[in-house]
């Protein structure tokens, strides 16, 4: 257990656990937090998990812990760790079961005032068009060959089916397709789970949310993104569904003996890993890329369904009902990237679990409209609270391997939320506050109550104070669909 006395304050909102804290640490842990968020991080096992993560071989710099951190399994949610390609490891548990869980934001020219009377219908239409819930089957059951294509092509597969625009693809991290995917590395069981579920939202904390752009803080960036104050926007939060979960489960099992074989000592078996350049490491990265591409395609198909819902409800009532992609970003991913370490460029595998990429201006992988600004960073709130649109900065490359926070971060356990909150009452409260809610499970809704999360505004204040992101716009939810 980590206590406050174990942390050294190294900046106004930066705290360090030095490697002397535990003999098996290889690098320091750095937490970005104000006093209140620090207390929240000390309230569970988050920082112990970050210390455990710091024992992975070949890590460089420090393990960064974002202000929205919370306890996960093995590696904390809100953690970033980079391992050298030459002697570092890749750990599936440090990326997560929901590989390429992420968020997509679409903007619109729909004035909130015009759409307001139709928001209940819009919530119902989104609920009807976007399959959600436990183990749901999607609208596009795949053959084995089609699944292989999805694995290799990602969101581009959806473009070929007519379910995407070229603009959507350009405004997706990695253009919606990670290199190196090899479907040969996918188990039969993962295939069985993946074939029926493409184009589904799932359950838990995944959602489709209609927002109104409440405040623009960077007019130039907001204009580039198509975000206008008082107009609607849409967020989609989901990942690779049972396909990605199975890929991670398969490799957490497969790497148990591999970790022993490579003589790697770990404080937690959920951190099992293999050298990045080993056959096991390469196989995992090839399978992970398949799941990441599946997730990009999944969010693309859900965006297509959301567009159908918008047209169905709003056509004839508003002048323009189209949705334009702002950006789509992963927050559970392992990426091979080049970073500057001690003045030298080096290739590393950046593990981001509950953390987004946040590259600054000039990054060649951004579409032209964002290249001078930096990469859009999407920070969804918690159903009843704000969400934020930020921009990555050059500072993030120095502080956090080009990474930022991914949300508000839980602070209350699901167990406690279930004990203290009632789904029906929560739905009534949200409706009274002007948020239309469609939820597959009231118990599930209670677990995801805004009270179970940290203050997203405080999280965003910390990342902007540290300088790893700048503010563009604040969004307010007006309709939410939960699985």
């Amino acid at each position, binding site marked *: 257990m980590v206590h406050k006395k174990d942390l050294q304050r190294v900046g106004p909102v930066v705290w360090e656990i030095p490697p002397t804290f535990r003999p098996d640490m290889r690098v320091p842990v750095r937490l970005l937090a104000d006093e209140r968020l620090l207390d929240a991080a000390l309230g569970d096992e*988050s920082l112990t998990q970050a210390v455990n993560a710091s024992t992975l071989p070949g890590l460089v710099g420090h393990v960064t812990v974002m202000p929205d951190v919370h*306890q996960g*399994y093995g590696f904390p949610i809100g953690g970033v760790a980079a391992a050298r390609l030459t002697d570092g490891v890749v750990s599936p548990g440090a990326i997560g079961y*929901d590989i390429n869980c992420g968020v997509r934001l679409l903007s619109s020219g729909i004035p909130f005032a015009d759409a307001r009377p139709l928001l209940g219908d819009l919530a119902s239409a989104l609920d009807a068009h976007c399959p959600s819930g436990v183990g749901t089957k999607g609208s596009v059951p795949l053959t084995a060959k089609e699944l292989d294509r999805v694995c290799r092509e990602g969101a581009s597969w959806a473009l070929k089916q007519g379910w995407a625009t070229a603009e959507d693809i350009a405004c997706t991290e990695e253009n919606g397709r990670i290199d190196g995917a090899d479907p040969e590395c996918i188990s039969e069981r993962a295939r069985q789970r993946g074939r029926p579920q493409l184009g589904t939202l*799932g359950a838990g904390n995944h959602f489709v949310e209609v927002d109104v752009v409440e405040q623009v803080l960077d007019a130039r960036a907001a204009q580039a993104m198509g975000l206008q104050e008082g107009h609607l926007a849409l967020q989609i939060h989901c990942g690779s569904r049972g396909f990605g*979960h199975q890929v991670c489960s398969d490799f957490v099992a497969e790497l148990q003996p591999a970790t022993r074989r490579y003589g790697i000592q770990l404080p*937690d078996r959920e951190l099992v890993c293999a050298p990045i350049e080993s056959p096991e490491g390469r196989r995992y990265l090839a399978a992970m890329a398949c799941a990441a591409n599946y997730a990009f395609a999944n969010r693309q198909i859900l965006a297509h369904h959301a567009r159908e819902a918008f047209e169905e409800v709003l056509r004839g009532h508003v002048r323009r009902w189209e949705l334009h992609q702002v950006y789509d970003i992963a927050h559970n991913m392992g990426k091979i990237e080049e970073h500057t370490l001690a003045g030298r460029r080096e290739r590393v595998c950046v593990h981001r679990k509950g953390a987004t990429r946040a590259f600054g201006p000039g990054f060649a992988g951004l579409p032209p409209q964002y290249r001078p600004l930096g990469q859009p960073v999407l920070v969804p709130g918690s159903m009843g609270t704000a969400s934020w649109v930020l921009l990555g900065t050059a500072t993030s490359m120095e502080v956090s391997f080009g990474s930022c926070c991914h949300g508000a971060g*839980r602070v209350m356990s699901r167990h*406690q939320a279930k004990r203290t909150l009632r789904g029906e009452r929560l739905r009534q409260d949200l409706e009274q506050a002007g948020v239309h809610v469609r939820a597959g499970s009231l*118990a599930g809704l209670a677990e995801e109550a805004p009270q179970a999360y940290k203050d997203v505004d405080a999280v965003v204040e910390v990342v902007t104070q540290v300088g790893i992101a700048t503010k563009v716009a604040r969004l307010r939810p007006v309709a939410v669909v939960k699985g």
Partner: protein
Amino acid sequence: MTLGYTGGVPSSGYVEIDHTADWALRVHGVDLADLLQQAAAGMLALAGALPVPDATTQPRTLRLQAADRETLLVRWLEELLFLLENQGLLPGPIQLEVGPGLQLEARLRLGPVGRLSRAIKAVTFHGLHVIDTSEGVEATLVFDV
């Protein structure tokens, strides 16, 4: 909330424990086979899995083998999750034996699942140790949700 204890000393059963983002269960069994049974019951209760009333069931035998007790526990629960999510099948009463070399044989009666209220993404190895106690065996399981 106690889910599975029937009172007295919890030598056999399960209890939900706090975890910020996921679900966790502390499971007790008089022996490893009982622990596997209790863990299955606990996981299915967490998922809110209910059968279709009066539906026909079919027998199935599952055989698994693992290098250690923790891996056997994870693999067993993963098998049940797959049946639940992908096949829509819920086990009724389970007869389960663990033989030498950690070979598990489970005889199940599977029926259609009528309701499944929560999604479990995966069974994790996080902090997982099957511990021998004076009353049997114990483990704490974390499920990714």
